[in-house]
């Protein structure tokens, strides 16, 4: 007699982690592309930002989906971590984790928490002012304000530094996360090996691009 598959089965939790992670990776790809425009052209950046900020599909469909993905990924991350540490109540006196696994794979919770903290800062910097502008103050749409806001934020060396550190940790998180999500979904063949390599490239290029954007605006102005 078979057990039926349960939603809280360990493997399905991991699949949820993998799917939400891959979803967030696609979001990151979009985000970095849009941001990079700010390095190239002030006007185009303002235009696309305005589109993103006022398009109903993005605001009322994509944004909630994104929020759900983010929350799911974080909550599951905490749940899994709590279960994992409960699975070894007495820890080793000596544990040589570096002997058999990469730093990034062993410290997803650390890189994840840094990203979470960064997200708080990021919301404080951009999302909350945006909400306040649109819904609290109820100001009229202004398609030219985005670039200036952005540049203004990167005046502070402390904030720029925090952003850069977070992006580096994001790189570590992606380095393990991408390949890991393929494995969690059951992919382990020549295609997944190829995709993993793409993932390693992504884990380097995307955070590097974010760092360049931050530094560009900090030093350029």
């Amino acid at each position, binding site marked *: 007699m078979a057990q039926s598959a349960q939603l809280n089965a*360990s*493997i399905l939790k991991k699949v949820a982690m993998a799917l939400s992670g891959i979803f967030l990776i696609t979001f990151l790809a979009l985000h970095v592309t849009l941001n990079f425009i700010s390095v190239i052209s002030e006007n185009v950046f303002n235009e696309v930002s305005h589109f993103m900020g006022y398009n109903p599909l993005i605001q009322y469909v994509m944004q909630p989906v994104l929020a759900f993905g983010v929350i799911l990924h974080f909550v599951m991350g905490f749940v899994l971590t709590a279960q*994992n540490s409960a*699975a070894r109540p007495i820890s080793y*006196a000596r544990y*040589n984790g570096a002997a058999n696994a990469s730093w990034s794979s062993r410290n997803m919770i650390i890189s994840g928490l840094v990203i979470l903290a960064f997200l708080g800062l990021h919301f404080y910097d951009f999302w909350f002012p945006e909400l306040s502008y649109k819904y609290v103050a109820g100001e009229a749409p202004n398609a030219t304000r985005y670039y200036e806001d952005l540049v203004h934020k990167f005046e502070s060396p402390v904030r720029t530094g925090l952003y850069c550190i977070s992006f580096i940790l994001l790189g570590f998180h992606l380095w393990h996360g991408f390949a890991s999500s393929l*494995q*969690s*979904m059951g*992919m382990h063949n020549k295609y997944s090996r190829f995709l993993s390599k793409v993932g390693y490239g992504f884990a380097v290029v995307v955070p590097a691009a974010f760092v360049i954007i931050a530094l560009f605006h900090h030093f350029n102005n």
Partner: protein
Amino acid sequence: MKLTLKIWRQKNAQDKGGIVEYPIDGIEPDMSFLEMLDVLNEQLINKGEEPVAFDHDCREGICGMCSLFINGEAHGPDRGVTTCQLHMRMFKDGDTIFIEPFRAKAFPVIKDLVVDRSSFDRIQHAGGFISVNTSGNTIDANTIPVNKDDADKSFDAAACIGCGACVATCKNSSAMLFVSAKVSQYALLPQGKVEATDRVLNMVHQMDLEGFGNCTNTGACEVECPKGISLENIARMNREYLAASLKG
């Protein structure tokens, strides 16, 4: 060789336990690690102290009984070996060696370095078999040809000795490598495919009940596995489980 051993001593399951230091001398590089512990135990007995309890049996790397966590690694610093095949030539004169039991909630300590791995047995009871009677009245062994690659991969998975190094070494104490090896062995053979859906659901369910952690794909288990069981098995089990879940 002269060594300092730091060994976990624990009288029984209720005792709190702790690390005790033992200096030892006269160890030869050709000795196996367990023979080194034999020497220590002989000395302890002669001094009127209790010898260190540790699991061991075949001492040729196949029974899966030995289970020491040595200097932070399951089965010690060598690769592709169990503790009984680890030789003292892997250490240097003057080294300090930490010796601890395999640790996991699902592997409670019985005494000193001996742990209870019956959780592995219970996972196997849940589905680690093909439901065929042992009457001998089956079809001729050569009736169903089996693709050689599949047969070889099935064998590679079946080579698991159930020692628990994967759990001990995993930062999450996950048993995925062990369970997936068993699931894969059968999933790859035509004989095992018949009840593959039930098998993976039942075994994973039992695995979760036993209190093992979740796999985060660090790959440490594959590195420390004395039999080189591949992570590919874990991916296969994930796939099998997903497919089984979709069947309802």
